[in-house]
């Protein structure tokens, strides 16, 4: 079972392309009626990407993600701040694990279902996964590496040369290859196997308790304006009235989405995070200001621009339901 899970979960999008390219003309596979094409087909359609994924590309991306040679001191990898066991977040409000030891401006979010996200980062400043990859690598407080040195080191390693050759035949070890492979790996991080997902698909293991079902109804009624679709995010930007707007004492409070758009209407707005895997990704919000889900709900219940009225019982039900959005298989599958 495990093996097939890996194939479907980590490579559903990818495999579709690989298999389509390769299997034309092969016989013998079509014995049973199809039940569905991918596990995440209850999600909205993913936007098109330019670089098609391959298994070799995803595999190279996975190697790079865990490779500390992407940092200047060869000790920090992407996984330093995006730990698989925490659904690829790091458990602190704002990380100081980067090369300079300086505390970063934002909370490191969990990484899942990125194939559906078109504006990355809390303020949507990065346009796609390929291009954003150079951000952490070069950032003086994150990995502080130069692209040139990184390429030099990777190209000196025969194992890496081989992995690049498999992923991008005839291209050598290039910055573009690093970007595309990491992006392919990041897109392959599909989390769609929580108890809730099994419930939606009518599968075994998809039973929801009464409190969870009541919580689901509350979330649909009161939160889905922003935490929309089966992704539990509208992937848009909202000011939810956090006070103060930033935990950074010297940050311009107008930042948020407005840093990118320069529009007054986008001041203090951040991208709606998904509600999946919250048990692994505390603390919450763009600056990690809330340690628990109870604190998050207390914020909404105080009222204000995105206030949500909830009775105590409703709040308990919501939290119960949010736990049903945890995907332990996703976390286990990607652990090294």
């Amino acid at each position, binding site marked *: *079972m495990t093996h097939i899970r890996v194939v479907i979960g980590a490579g559903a999008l990818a495999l579709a392309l690989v*298999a389509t390219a390769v*299997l*034309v003309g092969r016989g013998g596979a079509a014995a049973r009626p*199809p039940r569905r094409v*991918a596990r995440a087909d209850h999600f909205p359609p993913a936007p098109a990407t330019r670089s098609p994924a391959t298994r070799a590309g995803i595999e190279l991306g996975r190697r790079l993600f865990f490779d500390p040679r992407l940092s200047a001191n060869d000790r920090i990898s992407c996984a330093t701040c995006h730990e698989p066991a925490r659904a690829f977040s790091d458990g602190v409000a704002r990380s100081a694990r980067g090369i300079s030891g300086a505390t970063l401006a934002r909370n490191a979010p969990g990484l899942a279902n990125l194939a559906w996200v078109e504006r990355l980062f809390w303020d949507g400043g990065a346009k*796609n996964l390929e291009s954003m990859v150079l951000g952490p690598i070069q950032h003086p407080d994150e990995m502080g590496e*130069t692209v*040139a040195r990184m390429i030099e080191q990777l190209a000196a390693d025969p194992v890496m040369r081989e992995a690049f050759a498999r992923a991008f035949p*005839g291209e050598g070890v290039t910055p573009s290859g690093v970007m595309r492979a990491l992006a392919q790996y990041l897109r392959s991080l599909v989390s769609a196997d929580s108890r809730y997902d099994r419930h939606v698909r009518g599968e075994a293991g998809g039973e929801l308790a009464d409190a969870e079902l009541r919580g689901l109804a509350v979330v649909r009624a009161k939160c889905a304006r922003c935490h929309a679709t089966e992704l539990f995010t509208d992937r848009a930007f909202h000011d939810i009235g956090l006070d103060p707007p930033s935990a950074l004492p010297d940050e311009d409070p107008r930042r948020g989405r407005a840093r990118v758009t320069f529009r007054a209407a986008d001041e203090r707005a951040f991208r709606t995070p998904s509600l999946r895997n919250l048990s692994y990704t505390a603390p919450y919000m763009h600056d990690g200001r809330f340690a628990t889900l109870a604190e998050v709900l207390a914020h909404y219940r105080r009222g204000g621009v995105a206030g949500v009225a909830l009775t105590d019982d409703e709040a308990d039900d919501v939290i119960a339901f949010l736990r049903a959005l945890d995907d332990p298989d996703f976390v286990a599958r990607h652990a090294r």
Partner: protein
Amino acid sequence: MRRALSLIAILATAASCGDNDLQAEIDDLTAQLATTEAELAQTAQQRDTFKQERDALAGALAALEAKVNPVISLEVPFVFGAEALELNKAYPVAGGDTLSFREVRYWLTGVALERPDHSFVDVPDGYYLVEARPEQPLTNGTESALMLPATRREAISFTSIPSGTYVGIRFHIGVDPAHNDDLSRTAGELHTLKNMTSDNGWMWFTSYIFTKTRADLAGPGGAAVVSWDNGSNDDLREVHLAFPSAIETAAAVAYKVRVKADLETLADAVAPRQRVVIGAGTPGDRSLLADAFRDMFVLESAAAVP
């Protein structure tokens, strides 16, 4: 195609429907997957061979084109008023100030010649970096020990445009959104290791710097280092210039289109004393800078090289 999809469907079915009776099917699928991967490796090898063949053909095509098509060069020399630009020379600007340029660079892209019916013939993969700058370390967030050698690049040439009558030229300052939004996409001279991506917070936009100007400003208001960058999709500009008279191009003949880039016009339009720093955080000034780059080009001549 259909078979491929049904394999996936079966894999999905296997993964979703549960338990014991599946083990045999799983083994079967695992075996199929291994075959698939072997086939993929083979396909990859073929792709390699095709790529080599394509490159060889492209080389041959270029050689042939040079015989069949005219050889057209576009010269875009930097000048300051009547003089050719000298880096680090103090030129007078408004308000009794002087400006001496340390570095000027921009992406010249989307080159096309205009036919008499005002349609355009594009130069394929036309992404060029025009620059006047001294040696500098390759900086990608952090400085590296690698040096980019001093460069003065103010001309491009192409043989891909067929013979015919042409009445003007068009090009862009900056990079089109499709390439600007995806740094992993390579075309022409586009590359992330050219100090044209990551300075001054540009990584926030994960895109190319379109134009980059560094200069020393001196005068009654004091000394300052001018630093002008722009580069979001909104900053892309089109330059469209009519030839003084139509050129009739013929096979294997060389033609030269000379367009001067007058930094005096640029300095007048941007006013360095008022705008010492332009960058990611100053969208209004970035746009003004983009207009000023567009407007500094003056067509001097378009003719056969004698």
